[in-house]
């Protein structure tokens, strides 16, 4: 991270989190620098950056994790831990482990007196119990506001320890954009775990950065595709290890399979170690898979080979898409997702001739503008809601737009009776060319068989007043 980068995504120029309107106008306003800073005067809960930080590192081998916080901030560890257990099962591990998570459990006294003693105790327990190679220490709103100097405590404890103490500064109140937590984790990895001087370059070694939501099946497919280019994959950070992290600076190139995962870190690797990177898109759908694969292939000097492969895959897969197209063409879709996946899904539906009527994505910035301009070239004016979830806006929009299908977390739109599906599937393959067929059939099957949602809707208990559905969905977004 260009060393001046704080890890707070809001600090990057032209980043907007509270925005809504028609896609064409938003793209024009962004282009013309007419977008203003804004905030929602009413909002629903966000995902804090600590949730992303812990998710990023939780599956690392021989590591322990200290959450320096009151007990509640370990709540989302359960989701990461569940994913970790499932991931082990998929990878054939027999003795499935829980991640080693120790919470300092700050209480009233610690808030007044400081939490240093408990942090020291937690480090001692982690060392005694597990002799880990890395001990991550994750900060919290509470530890940040009371001013615990975690870096200094870690520096003081480090001599004499085999484990590398690695503080991650992810205080929740510092950022509205949960992806900041990924950056915080990579900043810590850079600072504490990577050498300043790169070792010898390993030809063909590629750093592949992938967020936690990527299934093992997807990992295998992506590794297989990169293998076609003669590359060996250093898959980071999931089910990875200190050794693999230390191999990062030796790589010939880097790429990511999510737009907001490791993008800043790859810039840092370029600046520190001269490792070029391909920052493209999530390889879901024909266009994105092409773009992603060709992006990394060009870097490796294998563009020719990659184009041949892409052509042969098109010849194999595109004819099979015809049947799916017949089922889905012209269907109107509303999409909600994280940054990478929302745009990937929007590109995917074009493979099936579907029409985008609404897109909900957490952040609008230069990267988003590229995607929106591309989508504006395909679809007529659709609604863009720049929101991290905010289900109240979503149900308002879905209720008035009446799409044929909703793609995303279905908890709320399903209760409106709209058919729902998701392109996020941590247990099956969604990426690459075969993933397109899987997702296409999944989308068509779920769209054609909406019985569950239709029958549920009359009994559903969504919490909103009737008048809300008739209001401007963006009325709470006010310029600041």
């Amino acid at each position, binding site marked *: 991270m260009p060393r001046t980068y704080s890890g707070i995504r809001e600090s990057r120029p032209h980043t907007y989190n509270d925005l809504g309107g028609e896609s064409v106008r938003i793209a024009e306003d962004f282009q013309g620098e007419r977008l203003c800073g804004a905030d929602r*005067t*009413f*909002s*629903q*809960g*966000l*995902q*804090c950056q*600590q*949730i992303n930080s812990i998710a990023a590192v939780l599956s690392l081998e021989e590591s322990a994790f200290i959450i320096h916080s*009151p*007990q*509640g*901030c*370990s*709540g*989302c560890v*359960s*989701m990461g831990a*569940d994913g970790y*257990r499932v991931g082990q099962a998929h990878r054939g591990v*027999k*003795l*499935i*482990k*829980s991640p*080693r*998570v*120790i*919470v*300092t*459990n*700050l*209480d*009233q006294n610690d*808030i007044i007196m400081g939490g240093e003693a408990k942090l020291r*105790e*937690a480090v001692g*327990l982690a060392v005694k119990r597990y002799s880990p190679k890395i001990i991550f220490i994750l900060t*919290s*709103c*509470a530890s940040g*506001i*009371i001013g615990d100097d975690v870096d200094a405590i870690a520096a003081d404890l480090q001599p004499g320890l085999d484990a590398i103490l690695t503080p991650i500064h992810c205080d*929740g*109140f*510092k*950022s*509205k954009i*949960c992806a900041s937590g990924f950056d915080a984790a990579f900043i810590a990895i850079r600072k504490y775990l990577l050498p300043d001087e790169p070792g010898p370059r390993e030809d063909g070694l590629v750093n592949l950065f992938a967020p936690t939501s990527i299934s093992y099946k997807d990992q295998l497919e992506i590794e297989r595709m990169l293998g076609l280019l003669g590359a060996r994959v250093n898959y980071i950070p999931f089910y990875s290890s200190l050794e693999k992290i230390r191999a990062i600076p030796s790589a010939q190139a880097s790429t990511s399979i999510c737009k907001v995962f490791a993008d800043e870190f790859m810039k840092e690797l370029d600046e520190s170690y001269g490792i070029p990177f391909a920052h493209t898109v999530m390889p879901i759908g024909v266009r994105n898979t092409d773009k992603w694969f060709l992006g990394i292939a060009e870097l490796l000097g294998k563009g020719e080979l990659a184009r041949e492969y892409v052509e042969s895959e098109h010849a194999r897969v595109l004819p099979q898409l015809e049947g799916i197209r017949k089922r889905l063409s012209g269907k109107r879709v509303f999409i909600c997702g994280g940054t990478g996946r929302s745009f990937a899904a929007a590109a995917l539906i074009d493979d099936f001739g579907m029409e985008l009527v609404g897109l909900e994505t957490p952040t609008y910035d230069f990267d988003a503008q590229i995607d929106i301009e591309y989508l504006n070239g395909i679809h007529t004016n659709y609604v863009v809601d720049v929101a991290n*979830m905010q*289900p109240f806006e979503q149900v308002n929009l879905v209720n008035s737009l009446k799409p044929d299908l909703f793609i995303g977390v279905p*908890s*709320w739109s399903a209760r409106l009776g709209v058919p729902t599906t998701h392109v996020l599937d941590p247990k099956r393959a969604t990426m690459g060319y075969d993933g397109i067929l899987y997702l296409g059939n999944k989308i068509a099957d779920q769209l054609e068989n909406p019985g569950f949602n239709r029958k549920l809707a009359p009994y559903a*208990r969504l*919490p*909103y*007043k009737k*008048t809300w559905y008739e*209001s401007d969905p963006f009325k709470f977004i006010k310029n600041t």
Partner: protein
Amino acid sequence: MSIVTENPRGTCVLGGVNNVLSAISRVCPIYHSGPGCCMQTTAGEAGQAGLRAPFFLSSVSTPCSNMLEREVVFGGESKLRDEIDGALEIIDADAYFILTGCTAGIIGDDIASVTQEYRGRGLPVYPITTPGFAGDSLLGYETAFQALLDHIVEPAVEKDGSLVNILGIVPYHDPQWAGTLEELSRIFRRLGLRVNTFFTEDQGIEHVRSSASAALNIIVSPWLLKGVAERYREQFGVPYLRFPALPVGVSLTSALVRQVGDALGLDGSLVERVVYEEEKYVYNYYESIIGGLSWKRFAVVADASAAVGVTRFLANDYSFTPVVTIVTDPMYRDEDRERITEQITSLEYAKAPDVHFLSDHYDIREKLREYDGITLLVGSSLEQEIALELGIQCHVMAFPVSDRLFLNRTYSGYRGSLTLVEDLFNNL
């Protein structure tokens, strides 16, 4: 007071309060907290209690002021007012509760005054001070009821001799809370009673408001709600009966039914008829699987209420051999530990198991290693690891449950024990 803990079983006060509010129909919690607290508390409680999400507002649908650096530095009261105004405008609720996260708690935002402004205008907006550093989610459960007593419960104009309140079963924390409350309601109705659970059958804030007209509070827990039970009695004249376990199976459930009958002075022949018919229903099934579920030497790792209930059921009613029971609730009163130990060790025929009070996942695993010959481990999803390692059958029923789905399933009451026996069957 709280201690450094590996894999703690539960979240913070905020999480516990939210468990209660999100289970009462048409109640809107509003978090005055940093971003993330809504997700953390829902994922860490409901998300680990059999995977049901509170239907009305939960996780990222919970209204939240999402306090950032600006609020931390300059105070967040004006942002909170905006948030409350928005919630009143769009959320169709009967009551709105402002909960504070660590952020608001440390900087000292005055939510009592802010909510007073709204109540002054006749709007049902109430404060509950809940910074996470104040304690764990079980304390939050108590805090929520204290707040309901402060703001909602009204003195009874008239007592209703046939109305009871069931308390002590923590929604979205006890993984089987819904099924248990439904089964207990079914049983008590057979005695001619009406039942407030506050959390099932769309019961709402009105049931809480009129709860002081009940003839009895039935506290189903060996230690929770001490202060709340006494306050109900002293301030609102509702006596209480503490039943120190989840009533798993015939012996415990019949004991509960008889105690309730005695406390309310119900017709003894009615009580005995209900007990007989319910027990007969269960034993007629048991009769058909004699020998079907093989004998086990068992260990239990669970919260106090489930630990007592399951240990007593398996030992007293199913003639399994108890080896060790580990109670995982962090608890600090000696009287509670003594009551729980006494309940686990005073068995009818079986030799008493060892009893330990441990909350730390590592300590629990190490303790279990000290025992040879355990063939069944009843615990939480966290116990899968040690069970795999030691090659023991593991049955997951206690918090946290992240690998099973619970809807209306319960092991409590008469019928619940049949479900437990079904689930324990393992042909391997």
